[in-house]
Every structure is written in C-alpha cells, then in structure tokens.
C-alpha cells in the first residue's frame, strides 16, 4: 500500500509494528496520533516480555544472578541513552517517568532553591502545559515572574522579542520546547540557548517532540537540561530521561527521598548516593528502561537520512492535501516543522471531525493539545492534529482527504 520514498522501505518497517495491522470500525487503522504516543515495534514489546519471563529482579541490590542480570540490562540501557543523545557520561542520564517528571525535577531541585523574588523564568507562548505549570508553581512560591516570549501567527518564536525579554526581566532560567507538539514548529534552540547563556540564564529543553524526529546532541546544542519520554520514540510508556550537566546535577539536592538514592541513613541524617542514583529513589521502571534501550537500537537500525527525507515528504504531501480540501485551514505554518499538521474548519468542531475520521479508522487528536494559551492565541478552542511517523504513507493521507470530504458531506 505504501510507496517507497528515497531509500526507505516503509512496508518492511510497518511489518515490525503489530498494532498497525489493527482494524478500526471495519477499516484498516490509520494511526495519525504519533505526537501523543508512537506505536511500538516487536523488538520493544518482546524485550519487555522476555525481561519478565527470564530476567526479572530488582536492580542495584541483590547479589543473586537475576539481580546482576537486571542491573546490567538496566545500566546498559542508560549507556544506550547516553550515546543516543551524545552525553559525556552515563550518570548524566537520569531515568524518570517521562518529560513531565523531568521538568518538575529541574523546577523543584534546581530552580526553586535558587530563584529569588523579582527574578524571572522565561518560556514561550507555544509551550505544553507540562512546561508552563511547573514554572508557575516555582515562580508563585518565590514571588518570581513567569515571562512569556511571543510568537508569530505562523508559529515561530519572535527571536528579537525573546532576546528583549531575557534582558528586561532579569531572567535566570529559560524553559522551551525544541519542537511544538501542537504546531510542529522546530524552534531555533541553538540560537536561543546562546542568547540565554549570553545573559547568564541556564536552559532546559522540553525535548519530548524532537526526540523521534531530530538527531539530538546535548553537547552540540549546549543546553543545560534536556527532558524526553520513551513512549514518543517507539519505546514503552512510564519511563523517560532527564539529562543534565554533571556539575549541575551534583550541585542539586535530591527530588525525592527513599531507597536507592542513599549511601547511608541514620535517623538523624542521610548521605546521598552519587549520580545518577541520587535522583532515582525507589524501584525504577526497569523493564521500561530496557525497552527504551531497545527502541534506541531500533531507531539506530534505520537509515536516518532516509527517514528524514520520508518524513519531510509526508509533511509536504499532507500540507498540500489539507489545502486541497475546501473549508479547512492549517494552524502552524512555520518554515521548519516536524510532520505535524494541525487544522481547523470554519464551521465544524474538531471533536466532530475526530469522530467522523475515527469512523473511517483514522486516529487523530482533536482538542487543545495541552496548550490552552496557544489555542487562545489562535482564537480557537481546539484543533484537529495529524501527527505523522516514518511508518505512515501517502496512501494513508489520501484516505484522510477522502474522509475529510465526508466530514463536509455530513455537515453540508
């Protein structure tokens, strides 16, 4: 059913994702909700199942064979993460529950103890709620200011304004998404990080949406923290990574207290463990981390240039397709985008569009995408979002066009 673009064999990739064979409402599934979560290849599903069948034990505790096996696999996963994002050392990569927990960890353990009244944290107008609310909480408590950098109608950060906000508001910390989940915009984060550092502010990248589409090199980006989730890059849910510069992480107090994060405990005081364990209190999602490691193996087995070419082509194809159906308008038309197309209809609500598309077997997201301030900026309550992966095809987008024409028919 799929065409071969550049050197990518989409059919052989699709064959590795069992869920893509599902039938929904009598139609073959077309999964266009990849920005919410991606589907999982067999290798990821199998390694999780095999772990529980053959290797399950707690990590970093027991002397028995299974304990050693589990610990080895868990720490190997950390090294895979390290190499994937080009971190200098594995202990800079902390396993957390996901991007949201990573951001909260930095907000509570790094920013909260350091920020003072009147100082500022800078975000952009296109952030996900998970990169807004943690900073609101920190700023409110410290009587600091949460400052928002404006965006253009196309969905690009206004860089001049961003720089101005940095200077005018005594900004100590900047938290920005690398890629917007609602618009698909790829932000010029290297430039923004340089601007922030020039003013003495440190930077966290919300990397949830970038990790599945762009090569990530934390050293080259020169960010100070980078958070992402496994489940948006073909790995399991429930696990993610916070990367931070080793010196910063060493300087931070733990986020949560418990087992595994200590070196010695008396009832009077506790000496904390070294990195990364200081930040990994309690039994982690061991199988999840191992699954993430295998998702990284899977991504590395693909021809990344061919993937990028295919995804760029799908974005162009989907954009043109949406333009071809009357009544629909695309929200988010930045020049640099990942394959995400958000759109609205003048008269038909996103929920109604979502239901009718679902009837055709097409899974899209309809809603505010956890970006209510951004929806307010565009004056809409909700959009319909098509977010694509390398396993999607032109033929599927053609089916979307057909289904959107049906939407028009229902409400004509």
């Amino acid at each position, binding site marked *: 059913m799929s065409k071969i673009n550049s050197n990518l064999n989409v059919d052989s990739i699709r064959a590795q994702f069992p869920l893509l064979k599902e039938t929904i409402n009598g139609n073959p599934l077309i999964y266009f909700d990849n920005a919410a979560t991606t589907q999982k290849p067999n290798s990821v599903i199998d390694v999780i199942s095999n772990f529980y069948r053959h290797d399950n034990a707690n990590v970093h505790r027991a002397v028995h064979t299974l304990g050693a096996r589990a610990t080895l696999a868990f720490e190997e996963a950390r090294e895979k993460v390290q190499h994937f994002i080009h971190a200098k050392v594995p202990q800079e990569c902390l396993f957390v529950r996901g991007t949201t927990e990573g951001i909260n960890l930095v907000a509570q353990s790094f920013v909260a103890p350091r920020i003072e009244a009147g100082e500022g944290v800078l975000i952009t107008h296109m952030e996900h709620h998970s990169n807004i609310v943690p900073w609101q909480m920190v700023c409110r408590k410290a009587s600091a200011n949460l400052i928002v950098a404006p965006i253009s109608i196309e969905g690009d950060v206004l860089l001049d304004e961003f720089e101005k906000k940095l200077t005018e508001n005594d900004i100590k910390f900047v938290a920005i998404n690398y890629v917007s989940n609602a618009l698909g915009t790829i932000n010029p984060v290297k430039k923004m990080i340089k601007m922030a550092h020039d003013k003495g502010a440190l930077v966290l990248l919300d990397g949830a949406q970038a990790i599945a589409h762009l090569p990530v090199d934390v050293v080259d980006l020169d960010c100070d923290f980078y958070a992402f989730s496994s489940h948006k890059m073909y790995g399991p849910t429930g696990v993610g990574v916070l990367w931070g510069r080793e010196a910063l992480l060493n300087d931070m107090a733990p986020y949560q207290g418990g087992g595994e994060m200590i070196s010695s405990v008396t009832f009077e005081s506790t000496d904390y463990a070294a990195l990364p364990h200081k930040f990994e209190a309690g039994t982690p999602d061991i199988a999840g981390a191992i699954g993430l490691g295998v998702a990284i193996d899977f991504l590395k087995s693909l021809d990344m240039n061919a993937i990028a070419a295919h995804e760029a082509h799908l974005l162009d194809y989907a954009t043109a397709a949406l333009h071809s159906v009357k009544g629909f308008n695309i929200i988010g038309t930045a020049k640099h985008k990942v394959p995400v197309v958000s759109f609205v209809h003048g008269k038909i609500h996103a*929920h109604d569009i979502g*239901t009718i598309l679902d009837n055709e077997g097409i899974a899209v997201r309809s*809603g505010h995408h956890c970006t209510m301030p951004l929806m307010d900026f565009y004056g809409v*309550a909700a959009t319909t979002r098509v977010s694509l992966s390398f396993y999607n095809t032109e033929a599927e987008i053609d089916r979307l066009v057909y289904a959107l024409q049906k939407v028009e028919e*229902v409400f004509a």
Partner: protein
Amino acid sequence: MSFDLRELYQEMIIDHNRSPRNFYTMVDATAAANGFNQLCGDKLTVYVKIDLGIVQEVSFVGSGCAISKASASLMTEALQGKTIEEAHNLFKQFHTMLTGSDEKSDEHETAISLDKLTALAGVRAYPARVKCATLAWHTFEAALRHDHSPVSTE
C-alpha cells in the same frame, strides 16, 4: 457513512447545531452557570428563569461541537414548563439513555417522555462523546444549585 455515524449525526442534531434554539443571554435569569469541557475546551453558559417551582425559560450561549450545541438546544426546549423535580428526572433518564446504565429509577419518580431528546441516543455508541452531550445538563443542574463556580465534565 456507517449506521452508527448516521445515528449520531441525524437530521435533528445537524439542524439544532446549525440553528440552536434559545441561543441568547437572558438578562432577567434567576440563575445561571458556566460549563466547561476540559477535554476539548468547549464553554457554555446556561441561563434559567424559575417561577413558582416551574422552569419558565432556559437559554444558553457558548461554543462547542455539534453534539454539545444540539444537546444544549434540545435541552432548552425540553425543560420549558417542567417542575424542578421533573427536570432532575429528565436528566436522569437522558443520562441513562446515553450511558445505558441499568440504574433503576425510584418507584415514586414519574417517567417523563424523552421526546425529541431521543435524537441523541446515537451518542451511546460513542462513549468519548457522552461528555459533550451532558455538558449543558450538568451546567443546568449547577445553575439550579445557584452554584456560580464553573462546572467541569471531568
């Protein structure tokens, strides 16, 4: 189009979505409340005028999907002239129609004809859309409680 979808978006729903009845701000309302669907950001305000225990007039304003708008519109018509107790019972019956729960109604409750509200029976096949169809009703109930805090369907 599938049978379920045609059931959901039947003529009366499309009509009430396109030209909602009682769609205005009631200046002499005796009660009003705001409703909010966190899932999609839909917002509406329901106005009620009650006199001698009878719902004299119900109106609404706001934006939302076809189901929530049509449901609000049909509700404003259905509630007119009902006693407060009848209004509560009607919502109970309406809710049962949408969710299919087998909750037995109290014996002394008088069954009230759902009448035009049965146009929304198709929602039953779409559990994700039940909240759209009940938003206006939850908001109406909040207005009756003279509760001015926004209602959420969560």
